[in-house]
């Protein structure tokens, strides 16, 4: 009698225990967030910055219970900055790991290669860095690609707007890198100038191997350029500054974010600071409460971060942080981790007080880019720091 009772109790206890094990496990199965970016090679720091932005946001979201009663988990893969590797990694994360959304990295060609896979798989793809216009404007319907970063087309409008406002630009001269990135910005700048009725003094190209850009710059100078619009990576951008030094031509330079990618001051010399270039965020200067909070979280999580100097590149951290919170809101709105429902969820996001700005209905079926030309921060290199323009005289 006693033993039967014990057996029954034991069975019941076992069943309860088994139930206890399975039920909450299902409920708490984490929502997987994928990330495909360069984690090795020259862009490793950028990949790490995106990782840190996402991690801080995920920790914050998980601490408040996650979304739909589930926590988030980050799964990363290295694309080694090559489209082929990125595509393989994206397929693995989507089809095998079954991530709810996938984040991309900083290389436009890699993101462009991943876009069709995501639209086909109907899993949202979020860009926290790569600025190529066609990543979000990819022609797919429905389009599953969203972005919280600068966009070439919009940067080009912002460059013109900034130059007109701050330098009274009437006749800009364009000096652009001779590659697809330069070409995409040539298109964007032409459109922006046409919309404002501005005629450029000239459009010149430079090569990565150009040692002396004086001939191109002399042409622009003689054509009466009053401002230079520059698009190029850190190397060629530095050659422009050095060539201007030799010519003794002091002209305002408004630039895309190329100089941010390296040791611009070392390469370009002291006049590096004359270049005003676009960023989406800076941790220097007065911060809103969100900025202070994020800085504190970064310092607590990563011992190598002692202050704004160590958050590099800042755009990667900031874009990824805001993007992750927007993803959480979209999943919450969707009430599920089903791709098409999350996509609809993005369109239902109302107001979100983020790091870069307070987002107000950031996405709609027509708008897949959350950052607009009014959200950019204009910065300059002072020694080796990227500071908001005018912070140090």
């Amino acid at each position: 009698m006693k033993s039967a009772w014990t057996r029954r109790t034991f069975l019941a206890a076992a069943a309860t225990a088994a139930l206890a094990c399975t039920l909450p496990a299902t409920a708490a199965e984490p929502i997987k967030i994928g990330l495909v970016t360069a984690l090795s090679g020259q862009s490793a720091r950028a990949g790490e910055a995106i990782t840190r932005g996402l991690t801080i946001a995920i920790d914050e979201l998980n601490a408040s219970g996650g979304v739909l009663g589930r926590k988030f988990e980050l799964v990363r893969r290295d694309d080694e900055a090559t489209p082929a590797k990125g595509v393989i990694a994206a397929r693995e994360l989507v089809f095998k790991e079954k991530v709810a959304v996938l984040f991309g990295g900083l290389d436009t060609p890699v993101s462009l290669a991943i876009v069709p896979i995501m639209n086909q798989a109907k899993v949202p793809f979020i860009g926290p860095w790569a600025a190529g216009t066609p990543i979000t404007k990819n022609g797919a319907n429905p389009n599953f690609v969203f972005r919280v970063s600068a966009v070439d087309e919009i940067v080009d409008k912002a460059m013109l707007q900034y130059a007109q406002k701050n330098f009274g630009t009437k006749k800009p001269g364009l000096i652009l890198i001779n590659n697809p990135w330069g070409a995409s910005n040539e298109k964007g700048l032409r459109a922006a100038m046409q919309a404002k009725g501005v005629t450029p003094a000239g459009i010149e190209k430079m090569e990565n191997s150009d040692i002396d850009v004086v001939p191109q710059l002399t042409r622009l100078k003689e054509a009466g350029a009053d401002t230079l619009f520059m698009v190029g990576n850190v190397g060629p951008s530095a050659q422009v500054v050095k060539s201007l030094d030799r010519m003794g031509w002091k002209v305002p330079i408004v630039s895309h974010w190329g100089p941010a990618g390296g040791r611009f001051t070392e390469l370009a010399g002291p006049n590096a600071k004359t270049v005003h270039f676009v960023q989406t965020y800076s941790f220097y200067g007065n911060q809103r409460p969100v900025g202070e909070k994020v800085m504190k979280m970064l310092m607590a999580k990563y011992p190598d971060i002692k202050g704004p100097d160590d958050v590099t590149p800042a755009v990667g951290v900031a874009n990824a942080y805001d993007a992750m919170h927007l993803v959480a809101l979209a999943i919450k709105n969707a009430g599920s981790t089903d791709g098409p429902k999350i996509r609809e969820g993005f369109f239902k996001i109302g107001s979100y007080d983020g790091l870069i700005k307070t987002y107000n209905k950031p996405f709609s079926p027509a708008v897949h880019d959350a950052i607009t030309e009014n959200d950019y921060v204009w910065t300059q290199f002072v020694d080796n720091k990227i500071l908001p323009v005018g912070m140090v005289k």
Partner: protein
Amino acid sequence: MLVISAIITGLGLGSMYGLLALGFHVTYAVSATVNFAQGSSMMLGAVFAYSFAVRLGWPIALAAPMALALCALYGILVEFIAVRPFARRGSNAWLMATVALGIVVDNAVLFTFGKEPRGFNMPWASGSIKVFGIGVSPLQLMIPAAGIALAGALHFYSRRSRGGKAMLAVVQNPEAARLMGINVARVISGAFALSTVFAGAAGILIAPLFNVHSDMGTVFGLKAFAVAILGGITSAWGVMIAGVVFGVVEALITALLGSTYTQILSFALVIVVLAAMPNGLFGRAEVKKV
């Protein structure tokens, strides 16, 4: 104004193409082979000089010769592993082997030196002096001077010195030279050393105006080969002059017609010249003895 500034730019760039092309000439003359990856040799010169002068803080008077000595060693290595084994068998595979070795070196530097371009700031590169009212860096004037000096040194070395005469003997008839007791293999290996020293010198000269990174030489190596063919690879002064001409033409096209046309027109011009003068501007027709 536009034209003068373009000519000054072109002279500096052109002498650098000339120096690289001189490297092609030296080895081609003695062995009918070249190191196709001259761009990598140029990059090595700049990377070594940067490492000694900036990272280790050596004076440039010590850093530059050390860098050139290492370049010479590299040249000997190129000949030994990427040219000799193939040329000995009468195979043309040294073509691919030198390109492959260049890629290996570029990537080895990428991993050790890093991908980020570094600034090689030297006092004589910054600042500007006025020439005909145009601001130029003192280094831009030094490069053509150094280029002509090195070409002249090569000229005198081959005419006046014992080693140079041995080189000329190998150029004329390797078999006869061997019978006269000249170590042909050593002469060829010396020519490769000289070739990489020229390329290394070009790299060191240009680096303060440019920056230092692992693939800085690729495009220059390519242009220099075009220049070598354009000048007629068998003539030392020919390739040097062709280098200067190519540099000036390139800069003039940029200045007068716009940078969009630079690459298209300058290389189209090379094709036109070669179609009209198959042996290049100053080359002699090769006589194939059967």
